[in-house]
């Protein structure tokens, strides 16, 4: 597990770089503004308002993870890759930095909710709220890591693909982990995998996403990519 030490160090490096680049400001301000609207009016009793703030943490997490993955200059990234000993620690490090960000934002949402609707939170509701925020944010970070360098070289294509993916998966309330995690706080309480189940599933999704990204950069799935490129060529020549 020596690469995990490198991954933590990469997370610190990328985290500081993103903090200095101020690319985190837009998603963070967006989220804070949304929380102000959500808890500023007359929010219902907890945990129902958290359904909205947890759901929004899904695209915000993707945005943050994308910003972290793209923060380094291309050449600087080759130095980081060489020092870390390969793509896995670098990809995992970026994901960890984004996850730290969504954890902070999620904590803000939970604490703000508790204060704004003082007295309506139960211990179980508090735990469910925390876990749902984490599940949504972690899944978002995983999605943002996929729709960024090195899988997508074009920022425009990455943005369109990510937005489509986020809207489709984020609006399906039956779809675990994000849809069910948000829905379980709202009207459809009690169904789905439960708060722990959603978080575990979110972590599994993240592991799969990181393995995919690191694997592609390590040159695995090369045969699949060639087949895919050939298919695109054929489609283009027909059209």
């Amino acid at each position, binding site marked *: 597990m*020596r690469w995990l*030490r*490198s991954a933590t*160090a*990469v997370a*610190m*490096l990328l985290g*500081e*770089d993103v903090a*200095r*680049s101020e690319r985190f400001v837009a998603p963070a301000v967006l989220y804070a503004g949304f929380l102000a609207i959500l808890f500023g009016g007359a929010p219902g009793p907890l945990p129902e308002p958290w359904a909205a703030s947890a759901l929004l943490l899904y695209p915000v997490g993707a945005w943050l993870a994308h910003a972290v993955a793209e923060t380094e*200059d*291309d*050449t*600087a*990234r*080759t*130095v*980081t*890759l*060489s*020092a*870390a*000993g*390969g*793509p896995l*620690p670098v990809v995992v490090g970026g994901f960890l930095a984004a996850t730290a960000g969504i954890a902070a934002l999620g904590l803000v949402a939970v604490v703000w909710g508790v204060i704004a609707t003082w007295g309506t939170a139960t211990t179980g509701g508090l735990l469910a709220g925390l876990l749902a925020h984490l599940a949504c944010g972690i899944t978002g970070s995983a999605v943002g890591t996929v729709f960024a360098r090195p899988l997508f*070289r074009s920022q425009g294509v990455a943005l369109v693909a990510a937005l489509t993916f986020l809207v489709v998966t984020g609006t399906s309330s039956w779809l675990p982990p994000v849809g069910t995690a948000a829905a379980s706080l709202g009207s459809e309480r009690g169904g789905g995998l439960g708060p722990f189940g959603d978080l575990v599933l979110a972590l599994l999704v993240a592991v799969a996403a990181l393995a995919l990204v690191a694997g592609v*950069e*390590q*040159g695995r799935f*090369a045969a699949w990519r060639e087949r895919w490129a050939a298919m695109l060529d054929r489609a283009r020549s027909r059209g």
Partner: protein
Amino acid sequence: MRLVGIHHTYASGTAALRGVDLDVDAGVPTVVRGGNGAGKSTLLRIAAGAETPTAGTVEDRPAVVGYLPDRFPARLRLPPRRWLDHMARVRRLDPDVVADRADGLLEELGYTGDDDEPMSELSKGNTQKIGLVQALACEPGLLVLDEPWSGLDDDAADALTALLASRTGAVLITDHTGTAHGLPGARVHRLRQGRLATAADPESVPLPTAPPPGAMMRIDMACAGDPRPLLERVLPPARVEGAAPGRFTVRVPAPDSDAWLAAALAAGCAVRSVRPVRPGQDSNRLPMPPGPGRSEEVPR
């Protein structure tokens, strides 16, 4: 460390490397030369572990690799020492120990930049020095340097040459300035059309089968005493480029060079170097004698 059968094709479909085999041994620097776009930087990225080749393997890469890319980025936001600390941690090293070594190296290289400003505020030379120190201060088992002398002032360039000359670990360098050739025991390889010319595999580079018509060889010889009587009376005719007591240089047509050398050796001379004359090269210039231990093949 060894690179075995490295092929690399970019996503655009351009083939950069077509089957490169290269041994990078500790003790002597390995220098890769080649024209622009020959694939040198790609080869170095692969050797440093920053890129995965399309095919082929890198065997026995040391745990700690120091890598300096070509065109070291000018837009880094972190201040230099923060970045060095982060890179030490990424390498799983103690940042304090590395920072002490980095201080010494920065002083040797004559670094004059600010420590608190972002690296984007540094001059090109100072940025290059930070990049070099990043690669050197971790005491790497393998040092991969892409054009390390670029942007350095004369003093820093000399300091870097001295640092590299005293290194015992494996070093892989590309260099346009020609300084790397002078490093003690440097092994020079040429990268052309994605392939390496090495002594072990002379077929790897598409050389012309016969020397082109009019090709000349420049022959540098040592002899006892004044070479003039020897050149005028004993040896076959040749164009004399330079002569001094104990030494002379001639140009002979490539097909006659073997016979000429045999005659010169029979007359008691010693060979200092035999090199092809590049077409269009200034014919009046006395060639520099090669450094000791330099291994450059003589194409026949």
